[in-house]
């Protein structure tokens, strides 16, 4: 069995935002209103002279126990056996319950206006109906044997993609070792995006 997961090493993310650009082009996200499937937060942490800068990439966590799936009334949000949490555009009526349920703010609304503007912006827009959208781990690329666009484009190899059920996989090893940890595990969502926290260092 395959259970896809992403590992993000905060030590090697340089904040170039290439992942955001690659994702936007691959998945035709509404960038004109500053909405992204993946976003890199630029943070300053600390006080006084002891301040450091950290880049913190965020995206849908493809939870094993996704709250967005249970609240979806039409079955538009579904989970594949390989762990990917996806949206069926045709079934989504855009009630917003998934956005309300997501503790990671991974979802966004696509309106009729967005569909119209998307056609102008991207030319050949794949999505035809409004509703909700989020990261799909580039399912179309995974199914074609490729890596997600953000992983492939990452210049610092900060993002790695792997299989949690493969004991030889680096991502699985880091997750199992506890060095890589998910966000807010106390919520019981069992996210499939793991982070290696930055080491404290002087620059």
């Amino acid at each position, binding site marked *: 069995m395959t259970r896809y997961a992403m590992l993000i090493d905060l030590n090697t993310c340089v904040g170039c935002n290439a992942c955001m650009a690659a994702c936007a082009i691959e998945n035709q996200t509404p960038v004109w209103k500053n909405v992204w499937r993946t976003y890199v*937060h630029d*943070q300053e*942490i600390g006080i006084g002279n002891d301040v450091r800068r950290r880049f*913190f990439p*965020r995206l849908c966590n493809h939870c094993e126990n996704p*709250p967005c799936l*249970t*609240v*979806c*009334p*039409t*079955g*538009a949000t579904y989970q594949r056996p390989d762990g990917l949490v996806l949206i069926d555009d*045709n*079934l*989504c*009526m*855009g*009630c*917003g*319950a998934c*956005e*309300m*349920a*997501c*503790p*990671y*703010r991974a979802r966004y*609304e*696509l*309106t*009729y206006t967005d569909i119209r503007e998307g056609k102008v912006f991207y030319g050949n827009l794949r999505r035809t*109906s*409004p*509703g*909700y959208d989020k990261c799909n781990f580039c399912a179309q690329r995974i199914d074609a044997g490729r890596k997600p666009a953000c992983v492939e484009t990452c210049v610092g190899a900060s993002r790695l993609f792997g299989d949690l059920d493969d004991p030889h996989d680096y991502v699985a090893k880091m997750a199992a070792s506890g060095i890589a*940890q*998910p*966000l*807010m595990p106390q*919520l*019981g*969502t069992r996210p499939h995006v793991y*982070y290696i*926290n930055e080491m404290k260092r002087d620059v």
Partner: protein
Amino acid sequence: MEVNVTYETQHLWTTWFAVYLYLGGLGAATMTITFLTDMYLKSHKTLAIWGALTGLMMVGGGSALLFIHLANHAAVVHVLNPLAIFFKPDAWIAWGTQFISWMMIASLLYILPYMIESPVLTKLPLIKTKIVSRLGSVAGSGNLHKILGMLAALSGLGVAVYTGLLLQSFPAVALWNNPGVPILFTVSAFSTACALLILIMHTFMGRDEQDNLLRRLYERADILLLATELLVIFLFYMYLTRGSISARVSADLLFHDLGWLLGFIGLGLLTPFLLELKSIFSGGHGGNHISTIAAAIFVLIGGFLLRDYFMAAGIYVYPT
């Protein structure tokens, strides 16, 4: 993992959604109470018609509000499908939509035989048609009429509970994600419904002396419901002020806000509770017509404030 967090309220389901929850709960509970009254307490056709029509308008209005806010209106057909609850038994919106649909259909059929006999409503063009008359006489026959009434009443109860269960299903927000919410919203729905019926009986229905017993029953039921609501609010205070970060920030928002303290708890719960209690101790409500109406209006205002504040004070703790 060590992360920075931000505390944020949501801007998606705001006051318009509070209106939906309010109208849904109030309308559904009104129908449930009037139909159960008509079936098991006192046969009262006028009350059943009033309850059903006001309930239908409220639930219909609330549902229309929700429909307007959908991103993809055409896809609503997937949730209107009765099989939706089998495909998605874990989604409360699917259950709620079915409860609302069945409640509206069953309640219309339940009051149809009464509407046909009503001298006022028979003046409406549709009521006089042969199809409606035939449908009315079939729906009014013996067991079927009772089955329709029970279906509408139980679906109404389902709608009232659903409004709370929907909020409970969002795990990120401590204010919503606890079993107190469905209890609070259900109690509030029935309390506001009692208040609405008291108001209708004291104003539009001409204060028929024969209805005195029913009015007193609704008043006493409302006192019990208001007392329960006050108790649940106290329990929420204890839970929120000693809970997680999300809960504590919600508690700060609610219990430092004069609108919540004076508007909801003071005007919407305590004042009507005391007014209705005074009415009981003064031996009925013969001379307390104004205070009874005022108490009912306060309860109705409080019911809306509860939902509006609940939507506004839900705190997400986002990692950033």
